C-alpha cells in the first residue's frame, strides 16, 4: 500500500495528468484541438501540455473539427498516436464523417494492415447550465458505429485510468468526458494511480440485493444518491457503472441482474434509440428467467436538449429513478 498522502483531486486534473503521463511515456502521443495550447482547453484539461512538450506535441489547430480529426487520421497512419479534443459534444458533429467513414473502419478496410490508434476526447452531457449546443449526450451515435470503442468515466481514478487505456489502445476510442464531473473531487493519489482494468469492464459501485441500476458517466453519481435515498423505502439497490459502452460488459451487468432480479437503466441520453434500449434488450435476452419485472429506462426526454433554465426537468434525477424502482412489480413478492 502506498504511504503517500491521498489528497482530493478533480476529474479535470486527473485527465490532465493522464495526458501528461502518456505524452511523457511515449513520444508518438500528440494532442491537437481548438484552444488546447496556451489556453489549456476551455475546460483546462490540456493545461500546461504545450508549455511542457512544445507546440508540435500539443497543437492549437484551425477551427475545423473535420480537419482536426481528418489530419489526426493521417498522423495515425504515419505511426503517431493522436489525442484529439473536440471542444463540446455538439461541436464534434462536423467530424462525424471522418469518424464514421474513416476512423472506425480503417483497420477493417485494410484487413488489419492500418489500425488507427487515436483517441477522440468529447466533453458531453448536461447539468452545467450550458446554452444551446453545449450539453448533448451523443453516445448513441458513436455506439452505433462499429469499429469504435466508447468509454466514459464516472470517477476521478477512472478518468485517469481509462484515458491512459484509451491512448494506449491500438483501436480508436471515443472518450466521453462528463462535463459536470470535471470539477468533482475524489481522494486520488496522482503519484500512485491505480492500474486500470482493460477497456470493456464494468464495475459494481454499490452492492445491493433489491434491484440493479445500470448506468454510466454523469448518471453514476445520481444513481448512488438514489440508492442512498432508496434505503428509506426499504430498497437495497446495486449500482453498476458501465465505464465502457463499447465493448459492453454483458457479464458484469447480467451477473448483477441475476442476483437482484430487477433492473433500471439510467442515462441522460434520450430514451428512444438511446443506449438504454440496447441495454434493456441485452439484459432481457440473457436474464429473462431471473427477471421479476420488465427492465425499465430512466432517460432524458426525447426532446432537443433544453435551455439551461429547464434542464433540471430533463435530466434523470433521484425522484425519477426512485419512481421507476417503485414500478418494478414489488407487489408480486408480497
Amino acid at each position, binding site marked *: 500500500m502506498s504511504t503517500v498522502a491521498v489528497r482530493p483531486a478533480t476529474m479535470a486534473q486527473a485527465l490532465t495528468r493522464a495526458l501528461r503521463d502518456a505524452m511523457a511515456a511515449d513520444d508518438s502521443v*500528440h494532442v491537437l484541438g481548438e484552444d488546447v495550447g496556451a489556453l489549456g482547453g476551455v475546460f483546462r484539461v490540456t493545461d500546461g501540455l504545450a508549455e511542457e512538450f*512544445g*507546440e*508540435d506535441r500539443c497543437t492549437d*489547430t*484551425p477551427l*475545423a473539427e*473535420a*480537419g482536426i*480529426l*481528418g*489530419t*489526426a*487520421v*493521417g*498522423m*495515425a*497512419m*504515419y*505511426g*503517431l498516436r*493522436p489525442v484529439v479534443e473536440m471542444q463540446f459534444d455538439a461541436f464534434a458533429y*462536423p467530424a462525424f*464523417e*471522418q469518424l464514421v*467513414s*474513416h476512423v472506425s*473502419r*480503417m*483497420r*477493417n*478496410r*485494410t*484487413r*488489419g*494492415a*492500418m*489500425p488507427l490508434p487515436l483517441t477522440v476526447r468529447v466533453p458531453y452531457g448536461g447539468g452545467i447550465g450550458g446554452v444551446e449546443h453545449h450539453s448533448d449526450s451523443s453516445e448513441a451515435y458513436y455506439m452505433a458505429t*462499429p*469499429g469504435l*470503442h466508447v468509454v466514459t468515466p464516472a470517477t476521478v481514478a477512472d478518468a485517469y485510468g481509462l484515458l491512459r487505456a484509451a491512448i494506449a*489502445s*491500438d*483501436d480508436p476510442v471515443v472518450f466521453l468526458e462528463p462535463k459536470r464531473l470535471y470539477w468533482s473531487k475524489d481522494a486520488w493519489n496522482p503519484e500512485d494511480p491505480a492500474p486500470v482494468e482493460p477497456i*470493456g469492464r464494468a464495475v459494481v459501485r454499490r452492492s445491493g440485493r433489491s434491484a440493479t441500476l445500470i448506468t454510466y458517466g454523469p448518471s453514476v453519481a445520481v444513481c448512488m444518491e438514489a440508492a442512498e435515498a432508496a434505503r428509506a423505502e426499504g430498497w437495497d439497490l446495486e449500482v453498476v457503472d458501465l465505464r465502457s459502452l*463499447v*465493448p*459492453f*460488459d*454483458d*457479464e458484469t451487468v447480467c451477473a448483477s441482474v441475476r442476483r437482484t432480479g430487477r433492473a433500471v437503466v439510467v442515462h441522460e441520453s434520450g430514451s428512444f434509440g438511446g443506449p438504454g434500449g440496447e441495454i434493456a434488450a441485452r439484459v432481457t435476452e440473457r436474464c429473462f428467467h431471473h427477471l421479476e419485472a420488465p427492465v425499465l429506462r430512466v432517460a432524458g426526454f426525447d426532446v432537443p436538449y433544453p435551455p439551461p433554465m429547464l434542464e433540471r426537468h430533463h435530466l434523470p434525477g433521484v425522484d425519477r429513478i426512485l419512481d421507476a424502482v417503485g414500478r418494478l412489480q414489488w407487489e408480486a413478492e408480497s
Partner: protein
Amino acid sequence: MTVMEQRGAYRPSPPPAWQPRTDPAPLLPDPEPHRVLGTEAAAQADPELLRTLYAHLVRGRRYNAQATALTKQGRLAVYPSSTGQEACEVAAALVLEEQDWLFPSYRDTLAVVARGVDPVQALTLLRGDWHTGYDPREHRVAPLCTPLATQLPHAVGLAHAARLKGDDVVALAMVGDGGTSEGDFHEALNFAAVWQAPVVFLVQNNGFAISVPLAKQTAAPSLAHKAVGYGMPGRLVDGNDAAAVHEVLADAVRHARAGGGPTLVEAITYRVDAHTNADDATRYRGDAEVDTWREHDPILLLERELTARGLIDEDGMRAAREDAEAMAADLRARMHQDPVLEPMDLFDHVYAEPTPQLREQREQLRAELEAEAEAGQSPRPEGALR
C-alpha cells in the same frame, strides 16, 4: 524550435491591424494552363521521361478498357474509368519518390497501379471481395477513397507527422473538380497551408461531377485560384499534356520537399467515358464535345511529339502496345479466377481483439455456414472454415 516558430507564424499585433502574411501575386495561377508538348519548351524535355510517360499512358488506356470490359463480364461491380485522364494519373505516380505517399480518390486506380500496386489488388475494392486489396504501407498508397475529398486531410496529417519526425516525405493527394466543393477540401488546404505541410493537391478538372458541369460547381476564375485564399501557390496545367503535368507536379513536389509548403495544381482534362459503367453520359452532354476532346487526347499529343522529334518509331509504339496487351491479358486471366472468400474474415479486423459481442456473432455465422454446408445448400466457394 517548433514548426510554428520556424516559419514565423502570423501573430496579430495590437492594435489588430491585419496584414496579409503572403503577397498574393506569386500565388496566382497563370491565366493560361501550362503546356509543354507542341511548344518550344518540349525541346527541353528529357527524351527518356517522355518515352516512359508514353509507355505508361498506353498501359493506362489499356487498363481502363480492360477494367470496363470486366464490368460487362460481371467480374467488377463497377469501374470509374479515367480514360482521357491518363496523363494526370501517370504523372501523379511518377513524380513521387519511394518514401512519398499517394492519396487516391476512387477514380485513381491507374495512379495506384503506376505507383507499383498489383493491378488485381488495386481492383479488389471494385470487384467487391474486400475494400482495400493492398497494404497501404507497402507502396505508401492510401486506400482508394470513395467519400469525396475526405482523404485530403489524411494526406495533410501524414505529411505533417512525417515532417515533425524529420522524415523526407511528400504526400500527393488527388481529387476531382466536384470534390473541391466539399468541406474537407477546404479544411485540408487550410490546415496544409497553416502547417506548411509538404503536400501537393492535384485537382483533375475533368469537366463533370457525374453529370454536373463545372459551371454549376464553382464561380471561381479557376479551381487553381482557390489556392490564393489559403496562402499557397495555385498552378494551372493542361491535364492532357503528360510532360506539362509531370513538370508542374515535379516542381510542386520539389517545393514541398524543400520546406516550401503545399501547392494546389489544377489539371484541365476531360472524362471521355461516362462516370462509371452504370452512368449514361448522353443525358447530359453531346458527342461533339467528346469528339473535340478526343482531338486533344493525351496519348495522341505525346505520340505526335515523340514522332516529330524522332524519339519513337513504329516498332517502339508497337512494343508499348504489346506490353499493354500482356498486362491486360494477365489482368483478365487473374480476374476471371473466382476470389477466395472467407466469410469469417468479417469479424477479424473490426478491432484488434473482437469484442464479446462480435465473438457471439462470429459463432452465429459459423453455425449458419456449417448448417448450409451440411444441407449441401451452398457450393461454398469460400474456402475452408477456420
